[in-house]
């Protein structure tokens, strides 16, 4: 375990050093990452400032949901979601083979070499929004914090599952960066209170695809007004992780080298 952590930290250090070769671009990218992630919260603020609401939710409650979503994304993106672009890029240019011959599991190596330093800007954005929104709301109880932490752990698990599925698809669907776009579109629903959508949409994003768990479900637990189907969402998140791990193994077997 200690050895794996050391390898991971070395990967992060290398990624950071590589990115610092273009220092100005790195810092600008980090800043922009932060600002880009603030787009949806900004739209939410504009909607509320124009006198409209998400029915049943005040502005800071809605922003808290978006803060939780961005916090999850902010942790996933730099630390492990890099498996997606890393795998797609390596399969496309043939260097995926190099991961296969390492004396460590391919998945672990894909995570280590996929550390994305500039995505730390997303994490800063997530922490900022989460903190601001939370400071404007009544303080949650200890029980609500505990529920939130358990659910937020599942949020990260689901992010990891999505990462695995997208990376797996990248093995057989060569060079397709549009996968990000599809993922982005689907998961955006997690930035809004699930309860504002129609029943069929709620069912889809809670019990069919684990999307509400990315923001709405843990945030509503923290607000003390848990979403309908929270327990079901937990089950779906666990099943999703198992499915994604199986999918990764299945797609890995289908990998055919193009020779670099």
């Amino acid at each position, binding site marked *: 375990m200690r050895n794996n952590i050391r390898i991971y930290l070395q990967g992060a250090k290398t990624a950071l050093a590589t990115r610092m070769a*273009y220092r100005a*671009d790195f810092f600008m990218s980090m800043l922009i990452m932060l600002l880009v992630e603030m787009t949806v919260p900004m*739209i939410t603020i*504009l*909607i509320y400032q124009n006198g409209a*609401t998400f*029915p049943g939710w005040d502005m800071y409650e809605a922003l808290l949901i978006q803060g939780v979503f961005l916090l999850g994304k902010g942790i996933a993106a730099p630390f492990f979601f890099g498996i997606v672009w890393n795998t797609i890029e390596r399969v496309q240019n043939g260097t995926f083979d190099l991961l296969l011959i390492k004396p460590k599991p391919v998945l672990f190596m894909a995570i280590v070499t996929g550390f994305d330093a500039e995505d730390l800007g997303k994490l800063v954005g997530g922490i900022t929004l989460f903190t601001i929104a939370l400071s404007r709301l009544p303080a949650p109880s200890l029980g609500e914090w505990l529920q939130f932490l358990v659910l937020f752990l599942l949020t990260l698990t689901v992010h990891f599952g999505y990462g695995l599925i997208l990376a797996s698809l990248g093995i057989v669907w060569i060079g397709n960066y549009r996968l990000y776009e599809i993922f*982005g*579109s689907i998961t955006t629903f997690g930035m*809004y209170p699930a309860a504002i959508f129609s029943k069929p949409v709620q069912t889809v994003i809670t019990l069919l695809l684990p999307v509400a768990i990315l923001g709405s479900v843990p945030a509503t637990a923290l607000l003390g007004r848990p979403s309908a189907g929270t327990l079901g969402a937990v089950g779906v998140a666990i099943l999703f992780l198992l499915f994604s791990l199986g999918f990764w193994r299945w797609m890995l077997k289908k990998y055919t080298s193009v020779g670099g």
Partner: protein
Amino acid sequence: MSVRSFFLTQIFIWRAVYATRTTLNGLTLEQMLTYYGIATLIGCLTYDSTDWDLQWSIRTGSFLTYLLRPISYSFLAFAQKIGHRILAFWVESVPVFLIFFFVFKIRLVPAEPAWALLSLGLSFVLIFLTNYCIGITAFWLTKTEGIRRAFLSLRDLSAGMLIPLTFFPEWMQKILFYLPFQFITYVPTRVFIGHYELAGVSLPIPQVVALQFVATVVMYAVARVLWYFGIKRFTGVGA
């Protein structure tokens, strides 16, 4: 988040927002969805990746191979864009149009087709030229991902791709009015609708398209100047 697929979420969000009201900021739900439909359609038809392609080839050194060819890089890149967008017309624009028409019962038909087509054409060229300029900055910066993201974000925001600009506070609308970004997407969107208004200023369609033409010419001149100075800095190592 890609603005081209952004509309799918927006439809559900705005339906929820409009559940308790009939108009918002003077727009009905149908008008709001029409706005997003047009913006998405224009986004599909004019999308451009010249900035990324150019900076990539400069950074990797493969740009050298383009210099050896008997045609200019800008012509090649523009021709590639036309090819990509012709393909995208069938696989992106037509499906978006059909989704809006059959699923949401919204007809994305321009108010004045000739002006809309002209404005769309100018937007097509303008996006290419601005992205080309972003790509050229790689002669100085080598890696331009940060500038590129900054530009795209500013463009999408100030072009009203994410929310109609009339939702912004008055002071911000005034700033956006004087920024050139509006000519890329906001102007063609408004020309498509048949009515231009920003920061309390209304302009006739021919006048706003003429301003868009001027912006395109200015951008062309900027691109030429940047290229003139940038190309002198290129050293073809690692091709």
